């Protein structure tokens, strides 16, 4: 961990610079200078991509016949809500 103030930056490896531009009550504004081929993503976007890929597998054949019933039969699920 290290502490940085607005206007200060840090380097990751030889090519990536991360600068703290401003800090407000809503959050920190961060500038990133990196080579074009370096992917910069918000972490929650990466998590969502992975989660969507997993969700897209869905079900096959016999599993599908059982799935709704099993999900419905779970005590934590209240079917009356929409």
């Amino acid at each position, binding site marked *: 961990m290290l502490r940085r103030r607005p206007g200060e930056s840090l380097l990751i490896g030889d090519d990536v610079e991360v600068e703290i531009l401003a800090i407000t009550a809503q959050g920190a504004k961060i500038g990133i200078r990196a080579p074009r081929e370096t992917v910069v993503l918000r972490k929650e976007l990466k998590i969502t991509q992975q*989660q969507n890929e997993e*969700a897209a597998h869905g079900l096959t054949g016999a599993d599908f016949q059982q799935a709704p019933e099993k999900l419905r039969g779970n005590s934590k699920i209240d079917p009356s*809500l929409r």
Partner: protein
Amino acid sequence: MLSVQTKYFGILSCREEEVFEFLGGMPAFEDEKHFVLIELPENAPLVFLQSLTHPTLCFLAFPILVADRAYQLAVSVEDLTALNLDRGRQPELGREVLVLALVSLHDRFSATANLMAPVVLNLKTHRGLQAIRQDRVYSHQHLIASRGPVAGGPEVSC
């Protein structure tokens, strides 16, 4: 009427105005711009978000309140704008928007719902997007069902 080749239900027909448009697709599926919602009484409360372009892409989902009764929306201003919704407040569930939690199934059979990134559908304009929360209030793997006998109560298996 549109004929939709679906992953689980063969060919279904739906009206064109029932199609939800996702201008930016969904994370990891950026090219998928059009989905239809399939709600069948025999599968309730489970619903299906079927891609119009790829029959094999069909997400399983729960209305968000089914996954978590007390769920509080926190759609960002950018997402509200993209959905043509009032930017000054959160939309009303069930009236203005339908909000879904996508379901992932693990090793036959535990299931989790993504409460961190709900799919928000504007019921009036039929715009949709996946609204990733900026906070860390909800899990992207909220356990909703687990393996084992139902009578014995939920049993965590993952």
